[in-house]
């Protein structure tokens, strides 16, 4: 019998502890010296690869913006390496952590600046298409929900083993769409928590 500690909601007031320097306006006075541990800009001087901007809205079952959500992302670097394993030989881009956090603003908008991830190892010895793991927390969510972000301009999506498990008519909810004419390259990824066009979330 497992004895794990149950999850509880992040609630509406997390920002000053978890995302103090984010886009979410929580501080009436504007002075707060808490240095953020994790922010929404993952780009480090030592990280090679394509700089990208990811932006989207988080919407509830009525299509209304969720203005108190926290989005966390976890990704590989441009060469498809995760920065997790302690004791592995150091990567040349040791400062790139692959982890980011963004709190939504009054319009439910979150955003990240990062490096486009490379393909990473997947089941059966095959590569997975480049993707980012996304975790959503919010008031009204008693536990986090997980999804994935794939890129609209990746041919490798067609052969991705995880995407293949998603019903074809819902697969599009996991695709971030490349926006025309932006520098840096910008992808749009809205997260619909509930409803007809609900984003696919994972039972993992």
């Amino acid at each position, binding site marked *: 019998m*497992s*004895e*794990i*500690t*149950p*999850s*509880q*909601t*992040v609630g*509406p*007031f997390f920002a*000053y*502890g978890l995302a103090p320097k984010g886009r979410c306006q*929580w501080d009436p006075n504007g002075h*707060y010296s*808490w*240095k953020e*541990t*994790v922010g929404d800009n993952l780009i480090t001087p030592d990280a090679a690869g394509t700089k990208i901007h990811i932006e989207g809205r988080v919407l*509830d*079952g*009525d299509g*209304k913006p969720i203005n*108190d959500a926290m989005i*966390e992302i*976890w990704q590989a670097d441009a060469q498809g390496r*995760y*920065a*997790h*394993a*302690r004791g592995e030989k150091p990567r040349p881009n040791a400062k790139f*952590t*692959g982890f980011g956090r963004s709190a939504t603003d009054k319009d439910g908008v979150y955003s990240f600046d990062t490096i486009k991830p490379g393909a*990473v190892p*997947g*089941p059966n010895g095959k590569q*997975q298409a480049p*993707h980012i*793991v996304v*975790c959503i927390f*919010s*008031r*009204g*969510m*008693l*536990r*986090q*929900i997980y999804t*994935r972000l794939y890129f609209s301009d990746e041919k490798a999506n067609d052969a991705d083993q*995880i995407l293949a*498990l*998603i019903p074809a008519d*819902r697969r599009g909810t996991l695709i971030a769409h490349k926006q025309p004419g932006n520098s840096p390259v910008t992808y749009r990824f809205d997260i619909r*928590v*509930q409803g007809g066009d*609900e984003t*696919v*979330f994972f*039972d*993992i």
Partner: protein
Amino acid sequence: MSLIYPKESLEAFPKHLSPEYRSTVKRSPSKPLVIVPHTLSELSGPAFGHDAIQDTDNDLTKQHKGEPLGERIIVHGQVLDEDKRPVPETLVEIWQANACGRYVHIVDQHPAPLDPNFTGAGRTITDKNGYYKFITVKPGAYPWGNHHNAWRPNHIHFSVFGQSFLTRLVTQMYFPGDYLFPFDPIFNSVTDEKARVRMISSFDLENTIPDWALCFRWNIVLRGREATPLDTDKD
């Protein structure tokens, strides 16, 4: 060390939709979650070095010119996996209301005073035994709009990482003997009583410091247990 993450363990978690907590009604997925295998993307997770924090970040009573009002307390314990092995060097973040039950956040309009000497955020990294410790003040109860005369039991919000992106946990630590437990839909969203009790800290007299601060102990158990080798001797 390789860990597996049995999904049955998550039975202790609240359901996404828990209508007594009204905000879940429009913020819970309505379609079945899609089962996918755990790949390297899920089995890896962020690591934090000690440069992520400052030494004093775990003492919430020393972040301003003076000391905050309220009962000074020590909250400590271990972060463990399902096999009760310590989870070392993992980031633990907390945030909480002040002793009057008021958060610094602009959205909190509860007419209780803010304390100029208390913000209410802290963080630390567990040591090699998975041990963490905070010094703070006991948070007050506060009203919220979920239903008529709704009050949250005293609690401290916790955010913990663990060894992979699947062990990520955001939860709340409660205090023993709270009279608001029976009325709180967030606490009671955990329907199994044994699981609910695991969110309640214990009063720790042994580590209470005479003439200075009460102590509460709370262990946090994350997903993950050691992979059991397949039994191949049967035939």
